[in-house]
């Protein structure tokens, strides 16, 4: 589908916004990210998408989880990715966090080799390095991001140890600092997250993701599955952390409320494609694509 070559997408230069970003170069540039599950055929991409109404290729039966996704993310900016279940939102962040390999596409991270290297094509070692030093990820389910049989402190330590931080005293200092910030009682630092409530597990996961003060954090449906009051606190926490630390974030959610509350710019995805992109206020206030209009109008 044309019109998906959105290159100036999320350069949402709202003037007068106080933040930490360096003007000019984006911190993360993603171009044409595509992930296809199954045998591929040349028709996979043309025969799927919003027009076809499906992401399953009629020719070969492969699933086109996402295709041709491009965006720019600037330092200190929050990008929302919204869409229904199966629209490829999670696949997008999993590919960017190297949990899943990409079929095609490129991504450049300004903090890694001056943004000259396509990180999606790097070796597994390099990707591990990038992941541990420059990225954080908060998954929808705490057990995906935490080792439930290691203590909360141990979970945070893992991230620090992966970044070669070999001092128990300082690890514990940093872990306390993070747990304090994410409102996890310090007495529980040496307890197993398995015994924590869902909301607290999620906060430990956020603490772990932030352990190395990464400039870029991915949040995949972080509030799904939490009750409303806990949701509000987690969102509050994320907003605080963003303001204090000036992180760039990619927030995946099917909840427009979350998107409205957190993000500067938004990508709307449907059947693996970006159907609309731009400033969040604009998209929610004046949706252009029929699917976005449907989404916004069905917001309670």
């Amino acid at each position, binding site marked *: 589908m044309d019109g998906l070559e959105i290159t100036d997408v999320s350069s949402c230069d709202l003037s007068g916004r106080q933040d930490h970003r360096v003007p000019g170069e984006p911190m993360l540039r993603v171009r044409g990210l595509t992930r296809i599950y199954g045998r591929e055929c040349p028709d996979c991409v043309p025969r799927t998408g919003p027009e076809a109404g499906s992401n399953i290729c009629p020719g070969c039966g492969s699933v086109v989880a996402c295709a041709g996704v491009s965006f720019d993310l600037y330092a200190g900016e929050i990008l929302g990715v919204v869409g229904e279940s199966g629209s490829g939102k999670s696949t997008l962040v999993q590919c960017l966090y190297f949990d899943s390999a990409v079929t095609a596409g490129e991504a450049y991270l300004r903090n890694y080799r001056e943004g000259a290297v396509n990180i999606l094509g790097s070796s597994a070692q390099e990707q591990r390095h990038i992941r541990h030093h420059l990225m954080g990820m908060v998954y929808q389910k705490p057990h995906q991001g935490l080792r439930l049989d290691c203590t909360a402190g141990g*979970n945070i*330590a893992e991230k620090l*140890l992966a970044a070669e931080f070999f001092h*128990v005293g300082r690890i514990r200092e940093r872990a306390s600092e993070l747990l304090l910030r994410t409102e996890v009682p310090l007495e529980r630092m040496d307890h197993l997250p398995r015994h924590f409530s869902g909301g607290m597990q999620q906060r430990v996961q956020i603490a772990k993701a932030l352990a190395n003060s990464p400039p870029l954090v991915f949040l995949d449906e972080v509030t799904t599955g939490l009750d409303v009051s806990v949701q509000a606190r987690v969102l509050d926490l994320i907003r605080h952390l963003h303001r204090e630390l000036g992180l760039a974030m990619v927030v995946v959610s099917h909840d427009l409320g979350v998107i409205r509350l957190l993000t500067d710019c938004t990508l709307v995805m449907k059947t693996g494609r970006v159907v609309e992109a731009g400033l969040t206020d604009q998209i929610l206030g004046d949706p252009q694509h029929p699917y976005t209009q449907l989404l916004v109008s069905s917001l309670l």
Partner: protein
Amino acid sequence: MPDKQAVRPGYNFAFLDEQTKKEIRRRILKAVAVPGYQVPFASRELPIAQGWGTGGLQLTLALVGPGDVVKVIDQGSDDVVNAVNIRRLLLQTTGVKTTEDTGAATLIQTRHRIPEERLREEQALVFQVPYPEPLRRVEPSEVKTREMHAEADYSRLWVFLYEDIVRWREITIGAQYPVLVNGRYVMDPSPIPRWDIPKLHMAANLNLFGAGREKRIYAVPPYTRVEPLAFEDHQFRVESFDGKHCAVCGSTASFLDELIDDHTGARRHTCSDVAYCAKRHQLLSENGPGAGRQTGNETGGGA
């Protein structure tokens, strides 16, 4: 020269066929070339059961030549059943000279100890290894551990050590303490006590490790860095025998075993390395007290 009388007829020299020995030697070369890396090999059936030192024995059989002098020890002793049987097998299939004197041996097969006497460049030490994978404590899958080694991803092992310190205020691993070899691979040094770990660091001799059941060979070549994993604020420590000495030779600079008398319940300590103890004992009785004065040089891990 080999003792022709001792050799049983009908066996190839050193039991294994020449092709097998060749294969094992090739694996050894690879292991030496990549210090600490576990090289897979086709472990053969032997006349002793797996778990009784078949890995070490295959290395010894592949390396031993007619001119070698072999020593076999089990937990520091030459006279324990495992050591005696392996020595006998070697003798009956090769006829080579055997010895209990560490200094006189060219090839030493050991289970769970490194001799107290410092080894020289021309000597090789062969370890029997039960579990070659240091990451097994944290990851059950072999596919995953190999990936972790390939990417030098040891953070989970570090978390294990961190949690140990949090729980017990120190790392509780007694034997089999994980070490980083040549700054690259984390290696299981076989279940030697912590006391022996410093002896591996920049050792003059070749150290070879064989795991028969797990089918792995790895090596620490001479003069290679071997560093126990430790935190900046929790340094590695060896066992302390403060105020204790060997009841036989009086040594205060060797790894001691505690013996409890069944009848009186009295406790005493003796050297775990029996040959070392006997040598010192003899020196003392020949030359009087003072002759066996210890400089602490014999052991790498004295302090």
